[in-house]
């Protein structure tokens, strides 16, 4: 026998360590992204939905070019907010089939690691989506990025992270309760208003509708929001997935 002979307890289960936890988080995130790369369910849904939002809003406000230009940041981030809902909801839906989510909770990984893994995948996805949508929106709405280009990646990162944290957290809750999918935005939106406001105001500075110093204040609010909710949701996630 190649493996050491084992009695029931002599085998010794693996000890939890930070390295194992991190590996678990990354494995879960990788799995989510791999799933998405293969099934493209979320990609199709979010791209389509975002495109529809952008175009329809443009039609609705298109008469006034100035109005259109000023509303670019707002429309962009509302579309991203909805994309966040779709992304997070799907990330748990696909796990529910065949009892895969259940299985995920049976491993000796801390519940928080499951949350972090899914959060990482959702956030990366949203950030990339935002990166694609920002120039599209600017072009469509006739806005131009000003000189403070550093605002773009910072806002994208902080804003999508805020959406991802709350969306992932509540998506797990609604999935575990087998609630209607429509409940997710109802629960989530009153919480992410600060993210929406902060990201929009900061994006306004990017396109020259706002001065950068003011945007800095909003970014601080965003950062504070991200930090507080990240810690809180990670800490109480295990309560959301128990039965």
């Amino acid at each position, binding site marked *: 026998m190649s493996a050491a002979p084992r009695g029931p307890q002599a085998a010794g289960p693996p000890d939890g360590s930070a390295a194992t936890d991190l590996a678990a988080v990354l494995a879960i995130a990788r799995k989510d992204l791999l799933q998405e790369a293969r099934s493209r369910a979320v990609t199709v849904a979010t791209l389509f939905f975002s495109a529809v939002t952008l175009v329809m809003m443009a039609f609705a406000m298109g008469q006034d070019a100035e109005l259109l230009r000023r509303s670019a940041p707002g429309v962009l981030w509302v579309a991203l907010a909805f994309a966040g809902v779709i992304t997070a909801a799907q990330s748990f839906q696909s796990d529910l089939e065949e009892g895969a989510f259940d299985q995920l909770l049976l491993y000796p990984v801390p519940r928080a690691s499951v949350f972090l893994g899914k959060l990482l995948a959702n956030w990366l996805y949203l950030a990339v989506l935002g990166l694609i949508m920002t120039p599209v929106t600017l072009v469509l709405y006739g806005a131009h990025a000003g000189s403070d280009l550093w605002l773009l990646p910072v806002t994208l990162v902080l804003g999508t992270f805020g959406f991802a944290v709350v969306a992932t957290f509540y998506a797990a809750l609604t999935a575990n309760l087998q*609630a209607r999918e429509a409940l997710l935005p*109802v629960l989530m939106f*009153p919480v992410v208003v*600060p993210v929406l406001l902060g990201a929009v105001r900061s994006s306004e500075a990017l396109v020259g509708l706002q001065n950068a110093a003011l945007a800095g204040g909003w970014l601080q609010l965003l950062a504070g929001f991200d930090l507080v909710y990240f810690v809180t949701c990670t800490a109480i996630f295990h309560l959301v997935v128990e039965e």
Partner: protein
Amino acid sequence: MTQRHETPRRPLWLRVLGLSTVVLFAVGAYLALVVSPPDVNQGQLIRMMYAHVSVAWVSFVAVIVTALYGMAFLWRGRPIDDTRAVANAEIATFFAGLTLVSGMTYSRPTLNTWWTWDAKLTLTALMFALLVGYFVVRGLIDDPTRRGRVSAVIGIVVAVSLPFNYLAAAWFRTLHPTLSVAVTGVHIAPSMLFVLLFNVGVAALVYLTFVSERIRIGKLEHQRSEERERREEGAPGEVVRV
């Protein structure tokens, strides 16, 4: 054969509390509507402030208490803590609704608009939405322990959201200064201050009365279901050994 239960009578202290609340409410109303002088700028409308501010403050306190009892339930697992949390959430929701209605009633005649994006009002609206979510989620869970734990989670998030939503709403307003007189920013004369504080106290008493009664009923409900569960359980079996 089910026994017929009579609802136990309200304890004396609760009846006294309820009665004094009614009396003091009448006093407060009198003070607000009659005794207090009309405002220099807003006339009789300022009287709305007494009701508006008092229910607003109490609703925020109630939300925080909801979160605290939720955490207590997570910590100790005693059903009474969940009952307390729900009682507070119910009052918070009700008072938040009153805040919104009184705010709108106030702004319509003074500013000719039903809604101002006043920071506190916006915060209250968001909090109201979150509390509705709290009850929707509760309605989805049958098991009392699980319901209590998930409710506690939502309660915590609601409480955490308050500072962020307030900051966001406040900054939002500074960028869009619409003509508005902040209801609580009015320079308050000492006589008005007394009436205000008195009415805040009355609102607090109303809160205490309702919450106490609600908890009492919750306790009774819990006792009833416990008895029923105990009857269903039957005797424990012998240990099966393998």
